[in-house]
């Protein structure tokens, strides 16, 4: 990818805007000029509005523990606000957080190779996990004869390698998952051993107030302890809160409503009826709504196929589900994922090589504890989800833990992010217009940089040292400088140090080290996973972390009986415990907000039901998958890739095209009430009628006209995502796939 380094869009020197924002008038500045300019603003804003009025937003920290970590370190030390990219990118999968207490779970991709059955649920592994796809093709398929099922409205690249392709109606995946649960329950393909140990389905729900029955209610234990009924001893059993291990011979009750005497906190005794979660779930799932024959109407997947896939999933073991972002980028995506997790729990398909529900998303999952470098002396930045900045301020339902700057955001630092090439480019532009200072740090002159006040030239990946890790591979790797930083680009650590020198020289000692020093700090405080790993080892190549081989996902829970949730780096142990109080996979959410929205159980809610009527009336939905030619918007301007993938196209089914007089290759306009943009049509049999597909990340300049994804600009936060707050673990996600549009031929 030498074009990243030598390409025409490379930023050569610091730039300071001289005209209007986005007008393209720049002054090439020296580093001193640029840094003085920024520091001047920073000091003024800090003194006038407080340091939290300066917001740092960097992509993607998981790939840059040191350099982008240095920016976080600066934010921590100055008390700036910090918006994690992970949740704003929509990668956070709240369905996982609701169920497992952690935002997403990945098994090591090597583990896929052990599967004999794999459902790729809206996941385009062949395109978005290219280096790992071989675990499916070469290992699972070729060696194990694994059967691969691909659920996707379009015949994706991955559908190529699938034995079965289910072209599902977009947004109906939740119904499909619950229908598969229906089949498992109907056929008794339920793994009760697994359920009673690892899930909350044996806990009881009180009929009187909907709370979960606690040990304290029965005076058997504390308020944070939960009970199940042991049929073997015919007595209540308090689920251990620090281990998943159950005594030998225990037979927890799954069904049957019981009458029980409970004591309230003030000593009142009452007789109430309580029902196991399993029973309640069964009541819902066994409803006629979820019978495959009825779900066929919703999903357009034949009932017999639903039965077949469900049965095969439960019986052809080890079986895996890999979830893609198509499910998650929906307002009700959390419900869908909860339903899929329910399916996997019913089948007990977890905890073995080749058995897991995996959702790989973003490069967020930190492999080690980064606190020692990012949060010196326990100082943390003021975490604010980017959503609220984009929305122009906090919502009425904002979690009280979030300290939104009281004077609003005055300065924004975007590092290696390209938020103006996301589905929310318009509201972001509006939010930026209100800023005093907008600094963009990048190596390529992106549309976001073009809108900045100051642009700082950063090195590319090949021009700096860093420490990187990723969710799907339990390794630490040293990123090494193989090309001397070109032009005037400087590593982020250097930039941060120079800014600190100007803004608050007393903090300079925190940045005295170089990249290797930072890595030493990281390795030292990294925790048990990186114990014993040294810089010298890293210099020889990637080093495997001290984790099971292969990592199957939730290893501590399934192998060491440690209660849920697993630790969410970079937060301390227990920071996310309140998300799953039972310490088990939770399929019942007792919090009021869930009950209010009727989402206590995994249920199916039609994807577009939350849209306005006029939006719902639009005939087509649009999906925006990753492109294989880019990493989001990076490489959009790569001349070689543009030579192969020459122009943005919208995939459209012939039946939709014919209706609108659109022929293959025509210039077309996608539009709705939010706006529209023009690009070219690709008429193809490989997509469901009623669905359009535009791969995301095209810079505006490559479109025929308009702004990229201007049709998507409606932001909404689901109240159940605001119930708790832990940056990038429990935070609002995105739902850009819920957009409805129409298309017409452009003249």
């Amino acid at each position: 990818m030498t074009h990243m380094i030598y390409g025409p869009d490379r930023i050569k020197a610091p730039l300071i805007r001289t005209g209007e924002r986005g007008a393209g008038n720049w002054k090439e500045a020296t580093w001193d000029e640029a840094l003085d300019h920024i520091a001047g603003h920073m000091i003024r804003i800090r003194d006038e509005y407080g340091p939290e009025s300066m917001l740092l937003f960097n992509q993607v920290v998981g790939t840059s523990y040191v350099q982008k970590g240095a920016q976080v370190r600066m934010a921590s030390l100055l008390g700036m606000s910090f918006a994690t990219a992970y949740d704003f990118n929509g990668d956070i999968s709240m369905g996982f957080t609701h169920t497992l207490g952690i935002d997403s779970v990945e098994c090591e991709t090597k583990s896929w190779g052990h599967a004999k059955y794999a459902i790729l649920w809206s996941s385009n592994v062949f395109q978005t996990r290219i280096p790992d796809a071989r675990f499916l093709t070469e290992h699972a398929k070729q060696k194990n004869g694994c059967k691969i099922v691909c659920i996707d409205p379009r015949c994706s690249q991955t559908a190529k390698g699938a034995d079965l392709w289910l072209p599902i109606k977009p947004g109906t995946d939740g119904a499909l998952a619950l229908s598969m649960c229906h089949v498992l329950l109907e056929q008794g393909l339920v793994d009760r051993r697994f359920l009673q140990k690892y899930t909350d389905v044996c806990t009881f729900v009180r009929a009187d107030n909907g709370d979960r029955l606690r040990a304290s209610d029965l005076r058997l234990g504390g308020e944070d302890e939960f009970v199940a009924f042991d049929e073997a001893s015919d007595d209540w059993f308090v689920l251990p809160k620090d281990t998943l291990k159950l005594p030998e011979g225990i037979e927890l009750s799954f069904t049957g409503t019981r009458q029980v005497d409970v004591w309230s906190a003030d000593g009142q005794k009452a007789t109430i009826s309580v029902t196991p979660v399993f029973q309640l779930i069964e009541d819902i799932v066994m409803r006629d709504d979820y019978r495959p024959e009825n779900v066929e109407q919703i999903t357009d997947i034949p009932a017999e196929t639903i039965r077949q896939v469900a049965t095969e999933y439960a019986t052809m073991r080890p079986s895996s589900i890999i979830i893609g972002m198509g499910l998650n980028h929906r307002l009700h995506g959390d419900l869908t994922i909860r339903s899929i997790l329910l399916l996997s729990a019913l089948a007990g398909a977890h905890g073995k090589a080749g058995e897991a529900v995996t959702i790989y998303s973003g490069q967020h999952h930190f492999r080690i504890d980064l606190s020692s470098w990012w949060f010196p002396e326990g100082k943390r930045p003021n975490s604010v989800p980017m959503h609220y900045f984009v929305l122009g301020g906090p919502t009425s339902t904002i979690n009280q833990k979030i300290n939104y700057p009281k004077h609003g955001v005055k300065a924004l630092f975007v590092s290696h992010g390209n938020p103006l090439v996301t589905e929310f480019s318009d509201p972001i532009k509006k939010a930026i217009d209100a800023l005093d200072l907008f600094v963009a740090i990048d190596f390529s002159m992106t549309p976001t940089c073009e809108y900045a006040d100051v642009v700082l030239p950063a090195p590319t990946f090949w021009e700096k040292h860093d420490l990187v890790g990723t969710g799907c591979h339990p390794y630490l790797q040293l990123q090494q400088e193989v090309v001397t930083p070109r032009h005037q680009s400087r590593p982020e650590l250097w930039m941060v140090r120079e800014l600190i020198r100007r803004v608050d020289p007393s903090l300079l000692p925190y940045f005295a080290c170089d990249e290797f020093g930072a890595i030493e700090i990281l390795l030292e405080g990294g925790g048990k996973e990186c114990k014993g790993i040294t810089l010298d080892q890293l210099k020889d190549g990637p080093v495997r972390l001290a984790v099971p081989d292969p990592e199957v996902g939730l290893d501590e829970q399934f192998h060491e009986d440690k209660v849920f949730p697993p630790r969410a780096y970079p937060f301390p142990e227990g920071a996310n415990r309140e998300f799953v109080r039972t310490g088990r996979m939770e399929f019942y959410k007792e919090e009021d907000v869930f009950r209010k929205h009727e989402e206590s159980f995994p249920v199916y809610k039609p994807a577009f039901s939350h849209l306005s009527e006029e939006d719902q009336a639009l005939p087509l939905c649009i999906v925006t998958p990753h492109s294989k030619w880019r990493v989001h918007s990076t490489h959009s301007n790569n001349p070689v890739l543009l030579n192969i993938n020459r122009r943005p196209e919208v995939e459209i089914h012939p039946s939709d095209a014919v209706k609108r007089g659109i022929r293959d290759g025509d210039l077309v306009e996608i539009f709705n009430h939010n706006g529209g943009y023009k690009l070219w049509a690709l008429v193809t049999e490989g997509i469901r009628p009623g669905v359009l597909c535009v791969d995301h990340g095209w810079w505006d300049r490559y479109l025929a006209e308009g702004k990229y994804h201007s049709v998507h600009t409606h932001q909404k936060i689901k109240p159940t995502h605001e119930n708790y707050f832990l940056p990038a673990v429990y935070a609002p996600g995105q739902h850009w796939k819920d957009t409805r549009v129409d298309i017409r031929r452009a003249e």
Partner: protein
Amino acid sequence: MARYSMLIDLTRCIGCDACTVACKQENGTPLDTFFARVVNIEAGKFPNVKRIYLPMLCYHCENPACLKACPNKAIVKRRDGIVLIDQDRCRGTGACVSACPYGNVILSERSQWYLDSEQAYERDFVKPRLREGVARKCTYCAHRVDEGLDPACVVACPTNARIFGDLDDSNSVLSNYIVEQREKTGREPFPLLASAGTLPAGAYLDTMAAQESALSNELHNQGTHGTGRPKLTKALFVILIAIAVLLASKLSFAQTTEGLRPSPEQVERFKENLFSTSSCIGCHGQEAMGGMGPPIAGTKLTEAQFLSIVRHGKGMMPGTSASDLSDSKVEEIRQELLKKPWVESQIPIAYKVGQVLKTKNVAMIFLFVFAFAFVFGIKVLFYWLKVSNLAMLLPYIPKFGVLRATWVLFAALVVDGFFVASLWRKSRFRWAMHGLILYGFCGLILGDVLMQIYNPTRGDLPLLDPIKLLLIASGASVMLGVFYVMFRYRVDDYIDNGMTLGRDFLFVNLLFHTIVSGFLTVVLNRLGISGWLMTIYLYHLVSIGLLIGTAPFTRFAHVWVVPALVAVTRLTEEMVKAGVDLGFQREPSPGRHHKTVRIAREIAERLAPEAGENVNIRYYP
């Protein structure tokens, strides 16, 4: 000796195009030039759609069409099987572009590079290896292979779908993989377009999902194990050459019997009447045909018939005018000859042959030879047009304009065919050397036509007659050209590309023999040295016959094959430029869409037979 091959396992391939990009990165190919590519095929109708990814690259055929089509011998097959285009020798004719049935050879007039600035890699490595205006293709990364490395696309493939190795080494990764897959998954390597007869070294393994329907009884081992067809062809040529040589020598050594030699007195008498070499006596008297007169003795011609023959010539004999030989003299000769005894057993073979070689018979033989050559020439032409996949191009021609297409083809035939523009552009010297033969031939043909018109009896013309001059000059030109070629064969060992040598050799030698024997005939005739004249003349005739008769199978064929292929290439280029069809616009390396369509259909038939006609190529995204 190694035999490199690449096997692509379609079960493993995920269509990520890492190969496409790695190839670009390694070879630094310019805009629109893709040595490696992945064809993205959609087969069927929703919801029964199958997506097929077919990674394509040069297959380094056992019997490379490009190599055979190249008029400049710029394409070589190395001993290890790698087929390379010599960027120095290539004159950019474009024949190979059409000749490759897979569309894997790329020729663009000008190279556009992605970046304005030139880095060391481009300057020192890429650009010296990729010359402007010449044909290029995948080299199997020969520069890497020579260092013991795998090709870049193989290294880059994230799913190990590309297995590269030596077929001749039973321990190579490739050989092992083939054996392993045969045993474990029952899959056999298969080549693309087996019917093209190119015997690609690169082959594929089926997608395992499609395995059951795709695995037929036939073993697709052609791609990896040669059937020996080239060897057979070579043997055929050797036999042909042997026959030609035998025939020629038989005729040359046809001996007369002692008793039939004329007596010294006879010779003296002939000498007295030695009017000129341009009479029958001129030949017979000078010991041509053994120095005897059986032709006349045996024919029992009437006086009028004899006179007519003498006056107008017959067969190989020129006519004689009355000023050279009066009627009475002619009759005197006839009488003299009639007295000659006729002893069957003593008639030399040459005479018998001569008897057969009556004008009518010679004409018939040549007609037959021409017909044979024509039929097979057409067959050869059609073979190449089929390989070039002109058929798939035809449906687009109405969109492009039939007249326009005709004009493009005609212009190509004239400019690239007759005037050999590619040679003219690259090297005037080579153009001139090539012209010696090409235009010399044209001169000979023109001379013959003129002769037919102005001198149908082929009576001897004065040396300075324009037709005679034209013929002599043309003959000399061809001869010079042939000498140059022979010289190049001697000094330039690189000229042997190992694949076409037999055909070249036969053609050049037949041409050499033809032209030298023709020249000798003229010279001996002029000098009046008639002793070997007839033998050499016959030899000349036989050579011409062989030259023409074998033309479709020798390098002679390039006379019509190369212009035809070049014309197809030009037509394709023009159609691409005109943006006739979306497929052309989208195909990253323009000009091979129509070939890709054929391949897509073939692979879809194999992997998604239920799709029927609904096969579409999606170039992107």
